[in-house]
């Protein structure tokens, strides 16, 4: 059982399925919000709501699950997402996985499958957080090769996340390469305009950069 109380979003046009998933999420000690269409998921996420994971049906009226995944991918929003559907079209699933879906559960599903999906989604969040803390710790200790060793895989594991670029910026900053650091803080912001640590760094560097007449 996970100790942290997480928040999940469930999108399915069948209220019975939504309720069932919510029951199992609650059984694991977490909270869940339910919506019936893909557009609502985007509205909630764009509205600033934070979720540890999303369960989405593939076939929904209006924006379906695949369109939702595409939209999140285009907006560079990285959030653990599990597809739950009775229809497993191979091409659609392949595209969904390429664009960030974490897992697929076919209907009907057992409570255990939902519990496993919750664990997978939370581990995904925890992994990035744990790795980030490790990298930051190594940078503080000036153990730069070690930090780089932990950091490089994060780029391939979390290509849409702003965190690897931010961490790389911190590393270059600690090594005294401020131009390279600024470039990576900017790259981090390009991936997520709202990522606070990069915004702060960017604001800190930008005046100096402009003064020196360098391009961003």
């Amino acid at each position, binding site marked *: 059982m996970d100790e942290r109380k997480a928040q999940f979003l469930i999108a399915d046009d069948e209220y*019975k399925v939504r*309720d*069932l998933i919510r*029951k*199992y999420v*609650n*059984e*694991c*000690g977490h909270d869940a919000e339910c919506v019936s269409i893909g557009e609502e998921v985007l509205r909630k996420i764009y509205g600033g709501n934070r979720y540890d994971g999303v369960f989405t049906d593939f076939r929904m009226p209006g924006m379906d699950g695949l369109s939702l995944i595409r939209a999140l991918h285009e907006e560079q929003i990285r959030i653990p997402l599990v597809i739950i559907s009775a229809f497993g079209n191979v091409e659609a699933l392949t595209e969904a996985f390429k664009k960030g879906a974490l897992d697929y559960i*076919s*209907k*009907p*599903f*057992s*409570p*255990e*499958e939902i519990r496993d999906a919750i664990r997978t989604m939370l581990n995904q969040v925890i992994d990035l957080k744990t790795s980030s803390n490790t990298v930051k710790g190594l940078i503080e200790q000036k153990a730069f090769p070690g930090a780089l060793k932990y950091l490089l895989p994060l780029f391939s594991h979390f290509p849409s996340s702003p965190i690897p670029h931010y961490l790389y910026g911190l590393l270059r900053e600690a090594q005294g390469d401020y131009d390279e650091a600024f470039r990576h803080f900017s790259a981090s912001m390009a991936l997520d305009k709202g990522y606070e640590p990069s915004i702060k760094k960017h604001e800190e560097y930008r005046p100096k950069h402009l003064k020196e007449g360098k391009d961003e």
Partner: protein
Amino acid sequence: MSKRKSWYVIVIGSGRFGARLAGKLSYEDHSVVVIDTNETNFDNLPPEYTGFTIQGDATDVEVLKLAKAHKADLFLALTDDDNTNFFVSQVAKDIFHVPHVISRVYDPANLPLFHEFKIETITPVLLALSTANKMLEKIAEEDK
């Protein structure tokens, strides 16, 4: 947090008994799948039923695979045919290794067969007899 673990339950047969029991289990927060060859039988499911339905023949192993029988905690064979109930119960036990299999048995003469294969049973005739006996005993007691 719920205190009791949710089960994954497969119910074969959506007649009056199967549908009501499925509704009860679903209401108690278990994940339930009802399988029936006749889609109109799903109309018997009560409003509180929040589980899944599969139209198909449960004697077809592929249908049981689709229902993820290998993940089931409880398997209930509740059709009105003893042969079907016996066959699907056997498959659930031996192929899908479902830990708890309960079957409805109409003809008490078939009970030894089910028990020989260690399938738990519900026999409506015996249950009715037992209830009738209790009622008769109560009346006899009152008449003394």
